[in-house]
């Protein structure tokens, strides 16, 4: 029962945190707000660090690492309010493609060919799953392709319009299409850095694959999305508390920093306790997904339901500590608050997740 990170995992997380501290500052996030999209350059740099293709199998050009290796990076991404689609691409799509490649006969690909040709992008149907993985995973790992999921259970998927390929899950079928081949309706939300849409399939389109194993892979992908969102919420929660601490240490009233007053201290201490207790839940969810634990869905649901509430609590506390200035467009706090509100509604809104947990806890079978 070891919750320890390896030295490598710790070093990678520190490296990514350092990168984001320099390259994803609030001003950078605001650029994503203004442009309505993430930054391709920063995405490419993250790919260069190995982050984007972290869980892509080595035979497809990635680092072949797992969900647990990615989880601390997702926390850091949340801490930086990263606009880039690390969750959609790395945590969900790449893993889904790798899962499916393993299904269809598995085994390493032959060494023929390098990157797929430009003609293959936008092809409405591809015959073989392994061809899909072989085509897209190397490009994902290189930071050259954005592949995002549009799965049932996440009705307003993010970053669809700027994707190269959308993996649409419907029932036990998987479709893989570029956004222009889908019926995409932009759904503006409170977080401009996380553009959402609804995705509908046009009538005459065939799935890439279907069947019970595909359904299982899609379910696993959904669980990954939930767990990854939970990790980002924990990071965002910590960031907002830190922002509020910084403010409370500098803003003076009644002759001293407002952080000297117990009410302010207690708001932030309470928020901190709640966010801290979500960390092991997030790590356990990642571990359960990685090991194929039968309760992975429950663990992910618990992690996200708790993390969403903890992050919302941190947002309220941080806003309250900031006072009126926190209520302005100018204050950076909203970059995290809106990410929290957006992510909380996605990958299993909080109420839906609690209902899943209710059913699990109150089932007739004993502990």
């Amino acid at each position, binding site marked *: *029962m*070891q*919750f*320890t*990170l390896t030295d490598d995992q710790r070093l990678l997380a520190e490296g990514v945190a350092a990168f984001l501290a320099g390259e994803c500052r609030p001003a950078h996030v605001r650029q994503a707000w203004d442009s309505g999209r993430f930054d391709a350059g920063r995405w490419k740099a993250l790919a260069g660090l190995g982050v984007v293709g972290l869980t892509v199998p080595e035979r497809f050009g990635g680092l072949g690492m797992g969900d*647990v290796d990615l989880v601390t990076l997702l926390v850091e991404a949340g801490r930086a309010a990263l606009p880039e689609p690390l969750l959609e691409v790395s945590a969900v799509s790449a893993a889904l493609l790798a899962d499916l490649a393993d299904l269809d006969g598995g085994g390493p690909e032959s060494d023929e060919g390098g990157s797929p040709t430009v003609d293959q992008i936008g092809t409405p149907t591809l015959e073989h799953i392994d061809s899909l993985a072989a085509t897209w995973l190397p490009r994902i790992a290189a930071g050259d392709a954005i592949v995002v999921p549009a799965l049932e259970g996440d009705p307003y998927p993010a970053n669809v319009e700027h994707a190269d390929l959308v993996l649409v899950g419907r029932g036990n079928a998987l479709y893989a299409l570029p956004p222009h081949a889908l019926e995409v309706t932009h759904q503006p939300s409170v977080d401009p850095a996380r553009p959402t849409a609804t995705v509908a399939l046009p009538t005459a389109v065939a799935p890439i694959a279907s069947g019970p194993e595909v359904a299982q892979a899609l379910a696993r992908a959904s669980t990954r999305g939930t767990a990854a969102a939970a990790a980002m919420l924990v990071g965002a929660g910590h960031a907002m*508390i830190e922002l509020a*601490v910084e403010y*409370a*240490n500098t803003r003076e009233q009644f002759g*001293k*920093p407002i*952080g*000297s007053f*117990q009410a*302010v*201290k*207690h708001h*932030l*201490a*309470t928020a*901190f*306790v709640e966010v*801290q*207790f*979500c*960390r*092991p*839940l997030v*790590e*356990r969810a990642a*571990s*359960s997904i990685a*090991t194929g634990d039968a309760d992975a869905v429950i663990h992910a649901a*618990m992690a996200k*339901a*708790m993390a969403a509430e903890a992050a919302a609590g941190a947002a309220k506390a941080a806003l309250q500590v900031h006072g009126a200035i926190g209520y302005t467009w100018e204050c950076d706090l909203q970059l995290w608050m809106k990410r929290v509100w957006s992510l909380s509604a996605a990958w299993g809104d909080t109420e839906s997740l*609690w209902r899943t*947990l*209710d059913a699990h*806890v*109150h089932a*007739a079978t004993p*502990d």
Partner: protein
Amino acid sequence: MDLTFTDEQDAFRAQAREWLLANAEHAPTCSFDTREGFELHRAWERRLFDGGWGVVPWPVEYGGRGADLIEWLIFEEEYYRAGCPYRVAQNGLFLLAPTLMEYGTPEQKQRFLRPMASGEEIWAQGWSEPGAGSDMAAIRARAVRDSDDWVISGQKTWSTRAAFADWMFGIFRTDPDSSRHHGLSFIFVPLDAEGVDVRPIRQLNGEPGFAEVFLDEVRVPVAQHTLAEPGQGWQVAMATAGFERGVSLRSPGRFNAASRRLVTLAMAQGDSVSPALVREVTRSWARTQAYDLFTYRTVAHVLAGGDVGPEASVNKIFWSEMDRSLNETALALLGPRAALGPGAPDAEADGDWMDRFLFSLSGPIYAGTNEIQRNIIAERVLGLPRG
């Protein structure tokens, strides 16, 4: 990261479970806050000790099994799963013992650890005074050096289980010119010594769970009875406080068992439970799960050489407020029967939930109030200004 138990850990669990299965029927079900109950619980401590399960993580020479913290957590899980009672010897075992192991001389360990483990000597904690609760540095009870003895005078209060305990560990002002947290010493006092007057205080549940301890020129040998050096009392007490707030005092096993009882209570009521209450039960369960995992995570950190430090305050806030909430939910589930007490024919489990609820109200108060804990987190973890 590997969240499975090893074969060795599973074997350890099986051993513990086997012993508990065979012996749990001898565990007292009554309160330890009565003279008779206290002695029954002392006998239970003796049985645990004789079976080799009383002080699992202690070195073998003091009656332990030399188990690591993970094994201790496993034992605690099995202990509470078997329905065994809270430990009457907990102040000694979970608070004093780790402090003694860190700061004590070999002679002190020899003298005090085994009798502590066997239940022969049960300890109370003498910290608070009428004028020194949250503000522990305002301590005034003094110990004056007279030849080889301390002569102790003053008053301690809220000393849990002091009504029936054998010894008390306390903090006393040994430097008369000192103030606040300077000049304090950590001293062991036998409660049957001349000049000691223990006055039980009746708590909300009607029992003398804690007591005032009046000390009128009580003589205690300096040798053996002083932990660390005179004047180091604050530092040593802070270590004890760390143990109290951190992992050692409240293991997840206790709350996991409570959560299971709560779910069972809800299930027994079937469809009549409202969705709102169903949710509250689920939330309690989720929080006990979080506490369980957080504890293992903390233990992993400690086993890897890390310190807990002020983060122990995070722990204390979480378990105490979680426990209170869990018991509130139980009362809500009981509806009109919630207020029924022992002896009431319609009471659920003879009023056990109300009893647990009353105890859970004290959680945010003892071991350092949650207000103090929040101050500690704000100042020492988050970096907000003091004062």
